[in-house]
């Protein structure tokens, strides 16, 4: 089968097919696929067929060429509370779904609290749907969040535990000599999976209710401790529904997770990770730990130059100036190249 590459109108910079006013230029086609002379211009034939369907009334609905459709206005960008992140993305977009993913200790919660603090400083009301009930009140207060403007929804598996307790009381626990004993680990994972799904159900229902209620400037879904395999079970239609719910509204929807799960429904995707310095320091530390002398390791590191990447944090500075990397993975609002930036967080007890 032969194939002919036909350059598209967009690629050639020509008007769209349905543009009524301007005529399409003749394509440079090979001779064997040259169109017959009786073939009318597609734009005229299509317009004529549409007009015949709606009737030849004087007050017929005017057809608007696709090239003249008004572009959706760019959403308002607001600060995330971290200067470096704002420089990377321009802020967080209102009326859009934003994902921030990363593994444990990659800075997700710090970014989340900074965003909440910035939103409450602006006088907005925020909602945090906590799938794992992991919010630390002291961290919240230290971040500068206005507690009166933060609604905290603590998901739990109490109802599921009651159900499981009922089941357990009726079933016998297998002993070591009975088949089914080796399935305890599987049951444990299965139990965790059930708990995750139950909490996810609570998260989704609470999110639906809050989006319907309206009035919140920022709604955060904290799925950071939810297993990726459970989080991926949320259907894309749900994310699409959430996105449509915040469109044309001043509400930001922020999802914290371990891996991206919203697909094309998210307008902005950030990936957080530990700074390379920390990773190298960890490798250096692990090499040092083979010798088993922590003090010697610290001494060795002190003797190295400051530019050396293997910098081991000292006792008092373990958590101060933690460095993280933020990588802009996807930005659908404005074409931006993938880039990353580093930012620091301070411990709550530092000045």
């Amino acid at each position, binding site marked *: 089968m032969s194939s002919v590459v036909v350059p598209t109108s967009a690629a050639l910079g020509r008007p769209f097919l349905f543009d009524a006013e301007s005529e399409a230029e003749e394509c440079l086609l090979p001779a064997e696929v040259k169109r017959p002379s009786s073939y009318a211009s597609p734009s005229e034939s299509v317009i004529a067929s549409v007009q015949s369907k709606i009737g030849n009334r004087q007050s017929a609905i005017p057809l608007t060429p696709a090239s003249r459709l008004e572009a959706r206005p760019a959403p308002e960008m607001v600060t995330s*509370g*971290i*200067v470096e992140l704002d420089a990377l993305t321009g802020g967080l977009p209102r009326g859009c779904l934003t994902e921030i993913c990363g*593994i*444990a*200790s990659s*800075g997700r*919660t*710090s*970014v*989340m609290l*900074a965003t909440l603090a910035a939103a409450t*400083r*602006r*006088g*907005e*009301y925020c909602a945090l749907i906590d799938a794992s*009930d*992991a*919010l*630390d*009140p*002291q*961290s*919240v*207060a*230290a*971040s*500068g969040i*206005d507690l*009166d403007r*933060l*609604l*905290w*929804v603590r998901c*739990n598996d109490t*109802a599921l535990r009651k159900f499981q307790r009922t089941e357990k009381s009726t079933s016998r626990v297998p002993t070591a000599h009975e088949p089914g004993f080796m399935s305890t680990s599987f049951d444990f994972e299965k139990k965790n999976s059930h708990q995750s799904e139950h909490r996810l159900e*609570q998260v989704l229902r609470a999110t639906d*209710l*809050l989006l319907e*209620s*309206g*009035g*919140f400037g920022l709604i955060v879904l904290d799925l*950071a*401790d939810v297993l990726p395999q459970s989080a991926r079970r949320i259907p894309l239609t749900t994310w699409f529904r959430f996105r449509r719910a915040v469109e044309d509204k*001043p509400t930001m929807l922020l999802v914290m997770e371990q891996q991206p799960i919203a697909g094309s429904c998210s307008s902005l995707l950030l990936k957080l990770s530990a700074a390379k310095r*920390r*990773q190298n320091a*960890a490798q250096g*530390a*692990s090499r040092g730990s083979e010798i088993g002398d922590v003090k010697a390791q610290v001494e060795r590191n002190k003797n190295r130059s400051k530019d050396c990447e293997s910098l081991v944090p000292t*006792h008092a500075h*373990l*958590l101060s100036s*933690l460095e993280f990397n933020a990588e802009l993975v996807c930005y659908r609002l404005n074409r931006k190249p993938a880039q990353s930036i580093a930012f620091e*967080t*301070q*411990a*709550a007890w530092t000045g």
Partner: protein
Amino acid sequence: MVFMPFACIYIPNFTIAAALRVEPELQAYAIAIFEGKAPLEKIVAVNENAIELGIAPGMSTSQGELCSELVLRQRSPLHESSAHAALIDCAQSFSPCVEDSACDTVLLDLAGMESLLGSVPQISRAIFERAAALGLRANIAAASNPDAALLAARGFSGITVIPAGREAEHLGPLPVPVLFAEQLNGDEKEGAESLLATIERWGIRNLRSLAALPEVALSERLGQRGLHLQQLARGGALRALASVEAPLIFEEAVELEHPVVLLEPLAFLLNRLLEQVCARLASRALATQELRLTLELSNLTGIDDDYENIGIPSESDGSVATQTASQIISSRQTKFTRNLSLPLPMLDAKVFLKLLQLDLNAHPPGAPIIKIHLAAEPARPRSAQGGLFLPPAPEPEKLELTLARIAGIVGENRVGALELLDTHHPEGFRMRRFVAEAARKTPQKQTPDSSEAQAAITALRRLRPPLRVNVLLENGQPARLNCPKKKEVQGEVLWKAGPWRSSGDWWECDAWSRDEWDIAVRDGNAVSFYRLVHDLLGGGWFVEGTYD
């Protein structure tokens, strides 16, 4: 002469009207109200449809039951007091000076109200419509003195406005018994009947004839009382109103013919009560911040397997209901009370109904309901100044409903705002009600200024409950840890900081004392930071959270 208008609101056939206020769907039926103890129950009031069927007051209920089309209802003082309270509320929404003449009659002083509410006919029309909104079909009359207005309201149906100086002309056609309406139903019944009989023997049938009698002759035969009656008939009696300050009590109640078991029909009844309460509050320009629902439950007798699960402990003023059927017999639990406290004064019957439904779903009464009593605590309506440039805020009514629904999903006390307690305990916080008051606090910054933003804080993600771990110590410091429940939390401790010791509540039963470590553990290619806690009292090691 300055025209000082007075108005009278009169509810004809008040007993029937009070019953119809609770069950408006019976309007098209023939209704008879009875009272008394069986088997000596007597019919005390009937409506027009029942009169057409030949039913009259004084008949026994057994006679009434012979008529299949007749609807019999027992007289309810509760319904009548609610109707009377609604009548007072209606009157006080138009004038601060209101006289409570009888259970079915109130008088208003409209002096000075014309500049606010319009002309006297307009005010009369508004009173009529307001009474209808409260479920009462009233006769409204306005005149230059209270007694003339009262007679006109009792004698003429609908709206009557008597111009000043023409009272005698308008009241003339009214029959003489209208002068004795109050006395005939009260303690002075015998005296009033004899006086009425005397007047009727003279051939006096209407007020015009009574007004035309010579005063001297009338006083010689009937005394001062006769002269007073003549003055009333002429519409010339002047007196001041004995105004009453009605207490701000907004309660509605309904007694049920058959016990209600399901929540759906209960919601229907609650909706009606809520609408009436809200209408009464609105007539007084008030809102409510607390609703009190009291359900009287049927006192179960006899053993019934269907009711085994009904003995669910709930709020009551009696003993806690027990679980077994035999003990239900002796249960004295008869009342079930729920208090609905609102964050802000509100006046939306639909929102109240939804909140009550959600609350009853979470806390069902546990027994059939025979009586519903709803009370609203009045409060000043909230006033909020809106603005074009204020940040968005949730609507209080919507928010309250949303929070109630979320509480039904995640559980009570698991949704709300965070409040830190004055303690060093790591979990020293509590959940409190989340209230969105946009005007209460002004935002700190009108425009975001990143240069003035606080630096990001290294946040902790708590593990609730904390993970128990096994820790290998070297020189008294954690060197390696292992968590049976979570594989990621195990490995060699790369870096550590601590210990930081804290303790508290040593004077309480739940004293605590702990050493905290911040540690870094390698997990594959990544390093994770944890807070490791050594419980000095219990002796265990726990991972309390992850620094993220």
